[in-house]
């Protein structure tokens, strides 16, 4: 049974809530009252529950199976986190209540900040960014503000070819000029090229570590020292912190700023596209420029510092300002802290180890069939990178393989990313998959690859077993239909 659109099911006089009757009172809107039809259909509660329950079943989800999207870190979302975030003491408090009435909330933010600083080995953290890309922006704004504060107008930001697409976008947004740095044959930043480009016009280098090929940048300490020597800053994209957490403190590598995707490393749910949360840790050099508001522990309790004008603060007197209306993603903070406390220092170290182990197991188990560009250069971190060269002879591609995996009952890996590898397939199993689950996926990937090589024509139009066949994305973009219009 196909599920119709809400607009085909409901009507404007149907309603799934009961409300009090409208009390008697003077109308103060007058001719600004909305009188024209809005055309918003309603449904009764039973119909609503059924509509969304049915729709939900057309989704793949981590609760249904492995979700091996490289760079996305789709791990198990513990149900304790959901329960904790719904405690009325967290979920039902207003961001502008008097501070004395939200001391527990401020304590939680302070506690989470402590965990993040300790895990990264960095002295400061900005909590308010709402997602990873927003965190990047926060970091780059701090770098810009720090440069401005010393009257330095450097404009160039160096970004390796293998960077997340968000990196150059963010740098451009802050008024920087972006230049690419090539990768070497081992899939890492070409250190010599980078060093050669450093100079008085280079404001910062943005590096993803582990990088988008799933590899640790072994020269990062060296790079940081060189950039600092040249008067620049190092921004580290922390999207892949799941590979390091508990085993490496990014602060020990010498970086100046790094965002953390709470949903990737600390298991807040992705929810089909957010909400995320992207706190940013800072070095001593950047700490004074961190955004408002922030939580400070005082003798009387916790204080939410919302503005700099009114008070003196040695640490933040150069804050570049506010990034969001309130204080950040409290609901995500609760979940992330619940996860951290559950794992503890020992468990988080195990997280990184199991994530890396699982990825290397995938790599080792598939590299005889799948093209594995960097398999010979040593172990990968939390992601195994493959390419579709092996499918070239039969005229099939990464896309065909991804869609074939759908018919096997799996969500495909990340495809065509990183861009530096042709027909890339980036597999990130995460630490919350069992060996049995990996063996199932390996079996399916081997079987699909073998069958694709043997009977390529069976695979040009997959999937066949999903709720939909291949969708026409070109038509969608050429003449966009972005909302329902009655026929």
């Amino acid at each position, binding site marked *: 049974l196909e599920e119709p659109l809400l607009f085909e099911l409901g009507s404007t006089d149907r309603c*799934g*809530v009961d409300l009090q009757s409208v009390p008697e*009172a003077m109308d103060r*809107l007058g001719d600004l009252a*909305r009188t024209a039809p*809005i055309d918003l259909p*309603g449904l009764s509660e039973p119909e609503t529950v059924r509509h*969304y329950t049915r*729709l*939900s079943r*057309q*989704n*793949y989800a*981590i*609760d249904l199976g492995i*979700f091996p999207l490289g760079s996305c870190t789709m791990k198990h*979302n*513990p149900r304790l986190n*959901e329960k*904790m975030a719904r405690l009325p*003491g*967290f*979920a039902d*408090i*207003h*961001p502008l*209540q008097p501070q004395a009435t939200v001391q527990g909330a401020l304590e939680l933010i302070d506690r989470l900040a402590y965990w993040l600083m300790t895990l990264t080995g960095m002295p400061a953290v900005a909590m308010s960014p709402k997602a990873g890309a*927003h965190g990047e922006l926060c970091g780059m704004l701090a770098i810009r*503000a720090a440069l401005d504060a010393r009257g330095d107008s450097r404009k160039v930001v160096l970004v390796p070819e293998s960077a997340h*697409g968000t990196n150059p976008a963010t740098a*451009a*947004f802050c008024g920087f000029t972006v230049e690419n740095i090539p990768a070497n044959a081992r899939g890492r930043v070409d250190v010599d090229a980078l060093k050669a480009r450093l100079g008085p016009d280079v404001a910062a280098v943005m590096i993803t570590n582990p990088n988008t090929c799933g590899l*640790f940048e072994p020269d*990062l300490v060296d790079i940081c020292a060189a950039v600092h020597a040249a008067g620049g800053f190092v921004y580290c994209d922390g999207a892949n912190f799941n590979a390091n957490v508990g085993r490496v403190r990014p602060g*020990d590598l010498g970086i100046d700023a790094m965002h953390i995707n709470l949903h990737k490393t600390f298991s807040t*749910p*992705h*929810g*089909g*596209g*957010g*909400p995320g*949360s992207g706190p940013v840790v800072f070095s001593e050099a950047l700490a004074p420029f961190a955004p408002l508001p922030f939580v400070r522990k005082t003798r009387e309790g916790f204080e939410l510092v919302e503005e700099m004008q009114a008070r003196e603060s040695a640490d933040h007197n150069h804050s570049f300002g506010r*990034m969001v*209306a*309130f204080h950040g*993603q409290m609901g995500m903070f*609760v979940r992330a802290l619940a996860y951290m406390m559950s794992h503890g220092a020992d*468990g988080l170290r195990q997280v990184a180890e199991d994530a*890396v*182990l*699982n990825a*290397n*197991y995938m790599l080792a188990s598939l590299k005889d069939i799948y093209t594995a560009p960097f398999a010979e250069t040593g172990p990968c971190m939390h992601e195994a990178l493959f390419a579709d060269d092996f499918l070239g002879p039969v005229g099939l591609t990464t896309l065909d393989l991804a869609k074939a995996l759908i018919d096997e009952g799996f969500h495909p890996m990340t495809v065509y990313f990183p861009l530096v590898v042709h027909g890339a397939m980036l597999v990130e199993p995460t630490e919350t998959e069992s060996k049995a689950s990996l063996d199932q996926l390996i079996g399916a990937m081997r079987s699909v690859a073998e069958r694709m090589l043997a009977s390529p024509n069976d695979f040009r*139009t997959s999937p066949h077993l999903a709720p*939909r066949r291949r*969708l026409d994305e070109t038509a969608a*973009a050429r003449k966009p*239909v*972005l909302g329902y219009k009655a026929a």
Partner: protein
Amino acid sequence: MRYLPLAQADREAMLATIGAPDIDALFIDVPESARLGGPIAGLPNHSPEMLVERELAAMAGKNLTAGTVPFFVGAGAYKHHVPASVDHIIQRGEFLTAYTPYQPEIAQGTLQVLFEFQTQVARLTGMEVANASMYDGSTAMTEAVFMARRVTRRKKAIVSGGVHPHYVAVLNTLTRFTDDEVLTHTPSLTSGTPGDDMTTLIAAIDTETSCVVVQNPNIFGHVADLTPLAEAAHAAGALLIVVVTEVISLGAVKSPGEMGADIVVGEGQSIGNGLNFGGPYLGLFACRDKHVRQMPGRLCGETVDADGKRGFVLTLSTREQHIRREKATSNICTNSGLCALAFSVHMTLLGEKGLRQLAAINHARAVQLAERLARIPGVELVTQRFFNEFTLKLPVEARPVIRKLADKGVLGGVSLGRLFPGVAELTHGMVVAVTETATDNDFDAFEDALDEVLA
């Protein structure tokens, strides 16, 4: 450790397959100076669920929960009753634990929800098209200003003094290092229309102006007719951006679209989402069809599959950073998918009939309370035309009054002094929000407490 499925025997077997002697061998690329020999110092080890729960519940217990006291705090976040079925639906694993729908064949659930959400938001705001949501209202407003720049190829934004000051602060932050010019207005309570005078705003518009940004109802609760402003902006080739922070108002107040807005942004928290101490919230973004290719954020579009069946995909991603890199329309990457789902479910339960009734209740209750409080000696009702929020001018500074109210167990409003630090004229102002959740007893408690504090 309860979230980690690998047993020690699994680990050993896997290392053998890999051909690595031990786990450390997989971390050889880490510079020796940065290798940690064991768990990071300064943090506790793993903890049973029961103990984590106990510790977090203790923190939660230190907060004064909105639902337990007479509650009148608004100014950009509102306490409304959310039906239990909303939370049930967003906790479905298939919604909660899905990723961004990059493989549309197995993500039609999320995609159809987004398509329905976009339609609901467009209709609600009176616009033609809406995106699949953004971080929150403040970031959506900033994105709208940048979009107006792209559309008009002009750099000057005029911002009304009635816009939420936090929103203005975010805009100022993000334009600090660009060559955008942001012309802000300091609000005043003395004019008949708290915020700023429409004529002043209109006068500021010139041919360099990319957009005029105005909030309705504004931060003081005031509801304005924006039609003259729209006309003036359009006459000068500028866009009108309307901000809505209390989305329930759209069930009672003429929509921005009807008043001529080109872009409508808003905070969608009021529908389907809790207070959550400020986040996660839900940025709404809607505009006219003709500007859709300059629109930031994710968009879901209708298409067909290979069998000709209707289906949905993320579309127009050519505007997005993972493809456009430094030329992307926006830095924004994720949306607020789950919050958008909650919004859409609640909106579906309400329907037009429910939304209108809910809005009418909010309005009537706010009017009732405003009239009661205005009778307290020395208290002046500044906002005359409002939806569910109004500004009172107190005979003394508002901030300490609010603290004293809290001591009496009443969360009574937001002081303008907190929202506008440094604007002396506003320190006596208090913004009071009233929703369907406030009871007559709550009204009594507020009135009595305010009476006592001011006595």
